[in-house]
């Protein structure tokens, strides 16, 4: 088995003392970030990126840290969902539906254990899926030409908003805005300074890291200042020891949820939230006999397995195609690009240490998370008592010191605040931020692929629609666009 040998090599990298420490630390920090309302995987990972640069971690170790945090957030999001009725992050919304009622009935320990085991099943199955399918997709992607990549980027921008029921025009506009911001700076091929307005600060363009810390971390502060506290009050976890009979009740739902979540994760743009929604509604459809929404263990297991599996699945398009499947993986892509590592099919040949070290680290992270989240759950529930006024200002200070440590320029701090305000206004207007980040990140590659395609054809634009791969991608894109237009007409928006 080729894959097995590579995976073993990966494990030899993942168990290096530094990486092992990063896995444990990342899992712990991730669970904490996920558990705290207002901070989710995107903010958590965005705040950590400048720090990984500043500490000079190499790409493999940085990816291991961020992925451990990412997986950890998916576990942590459920804690406040179950105990407080406030989802720790967006994908945990579905977990509140049955998790909080279970806690109210005095079964909080059961709910936490069921969701912990479901998270483990979902994340582990998705990691196995990643191990098996990512190399296949990478092999297929080698045949992609520049025109096909251009088509792939068009698809990513069209579908990244997902089928969330928001106006698809807004998703596209957000992507265009990101692409416009991405063209600021010197054009790498011709050396023409574009949209710099004579400012030398802008010659290198906007640093995506600075932009996304602003978009995700700073905008959250402004958001926090306007919302009123909601939720149902902290339910004490009660008996510490869960009953294994209850955990067993959730097993089937976990397996089904994992499969659905994994598929949702691979689709570009869908991400963990959709994975959780789809898993929950599917489980409800097949096993509800009036108990869902009132504290059914299967209603806790399915969405948790779904969102954890989706986050594993979302790593596949990011690593193999360089096109992320969710907001958090878009942020990770930003980090790889900043470290001069171009994800895509060649990543598997050029940096097998990174890919397989990461995959092995994910297996280890899951076991670490299972241990952190079953016996040590009491520790995390205590954190929920921390007031937001003590926490959010620290997030601001860490964002500032992280960005300052990589840029050493007060100008970039102002840019970060500017992006924070932009992010806040866009979110208020129901524009999703992920397409903006994606545009900013992928704009240059999109332009370069267009350039390469045109230099092959001698300036003839019809090359863009000549390869069967590109035509296939455009067809899928068109189908997706029709579907999301139809959904946005049919149902009011459910998720921001």
């Amino acid at each position, binding site marked *: 088995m080729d894959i097995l040998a590579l995976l073993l090599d990966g494990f030899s990298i993942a168990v290096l003392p530094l990486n092992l420490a990063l896995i444990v630390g990342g899992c712990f920090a991730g669970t904490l970030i996920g558990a705290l309302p207002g901070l989710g995987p995107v903010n958590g990972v965005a705040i950590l990126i400048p*720090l990984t640069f*500043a*500490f000079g971690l190499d790409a493999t170790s940085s990816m291991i840290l961020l992925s451990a945090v990412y997986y950890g957030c998916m576990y942590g999001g459920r804690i406040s969902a179950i105990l407080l009725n406030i989802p720790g992050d967006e994908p945990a919304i579905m977990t509140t539906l049955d998790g909080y009622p279970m806690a109210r009935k005095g079964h909080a320990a059961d709910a936490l254990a069921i969701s912990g085991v479901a998270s483990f099943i979902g994340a582990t199955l998705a990691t196995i899926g990643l191990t098996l399918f990512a190399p296949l997709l990478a092999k297929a992607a080698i045949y992609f030409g520049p025109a096909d990549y251009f088509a792939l980027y068009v698809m990513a921008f069209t579908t990244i908003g997902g089928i969330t029921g928001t*106006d698809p*025009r*807004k998703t*596209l*506009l957000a992507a*265009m*805005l990101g*692409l*416009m911001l991405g*063209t600021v700076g010197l*054009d790498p*091929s*011709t*050396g*023409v300074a*574009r*949209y710099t307005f004579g400012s030398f600060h802008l010659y290198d363009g906007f640093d995506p890291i600075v932009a996304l810390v602003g978009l995700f971390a*700073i905008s959250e*502060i*402004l958001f*926090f*200042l*306007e919302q009123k506290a909601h939720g149902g009050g902290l339910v004490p976890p009660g008996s510490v020891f869960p009953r294994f009979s209850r955990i067993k009740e959730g097993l089937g739902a976990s397996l089904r949820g994992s499969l659905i979540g994994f598929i949702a994760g691979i689709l570009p743009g869908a991400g963990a939230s959709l994975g959780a929604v789809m898993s929950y509604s599917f489980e409800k459809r097949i096993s509800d006999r009036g108990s869902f929404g009132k504290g059914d263990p299967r209603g806790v297991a399915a969405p948790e397995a779904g969102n954890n599996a989706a986050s594993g699945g979302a790593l596949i398009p990011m690593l193999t195609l360089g096109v992320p499947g969710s907001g958090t993986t878009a942020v990770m892509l930003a980090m790889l690009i900043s470290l001069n590592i171009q994800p895509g099919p060649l990543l598997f040949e050029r940096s097998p240490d990174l890919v397989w070290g990461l995959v092995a680290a994910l297996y280890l992270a899951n076991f670490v998370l299972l241990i952190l989240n079953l016996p040590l759950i009491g520790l995390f529930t205590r954190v929920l008592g921390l*007031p*937001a*006024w*003590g926490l*959010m*200002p*620290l997030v*601001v*200070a*860490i964002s*500032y*010191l992280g960005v*300052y*440590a990589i840029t050493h320029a*007060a100008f970039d*701090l*102002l840019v*970060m*605040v500017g992006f*924070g*305000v932009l992010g806040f206004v866009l979110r*208020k*207007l*129901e*524009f999703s931020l992920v397409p903006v980040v994606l545009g900013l990140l992928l704009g240059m590659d*999109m*332009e370069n692929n*267009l*350039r390469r395609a*045109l*230099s092959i054809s*001698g300036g003839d634009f019809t090359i863009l629609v000549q390869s069967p791969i590109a035509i296939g991608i455009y067809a899928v894109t068109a189908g997706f666009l029709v579907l999301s237009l139809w959904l*946005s007409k049919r149902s009011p*928006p459910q998720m921001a």
Partner: protein
Amino acid sequence: MTDRLAGLFFFVLAAGYLWLSAGYVAGFGDPLGPAVFPRVIGIPAAILGLSLAIWPSHNATWAGRAGLLRQVAAMGLLLGYALLLEPLGFVPASFAAILGLSLLMGAPPLRGFLTAALAAPGLYLLFDRLMGLPLPLIGEMLG
């Protein structure tokens, strides 16, 4: 209403973006030139912006008077923090920013003060001394 304004904003932005792209002249031997890609983005953005202005789909609700005031104050703090980080140094600037933000978020004054007084030097010690990120301890204005 907010959608109409947003659509109009995007339309004007895209139009300005397109207008500026006309000034970027193609270099020698480049099949695309620096102006084509901005047009590929700008034209659909202008159309989409216009369509959103004509057929809006959503109206955002903003925070009440108190919420807006808090947000404006937070903006001021964030900008001040960015501008004063170098002149004042990390510890004093962070102390002021953390104190101000925690009060805005409803901290009891004494506990907010204690949080800021502990966190600002604490973050400095943790990140600069322990983990080796170079941060300005005392700015040029005080030192």
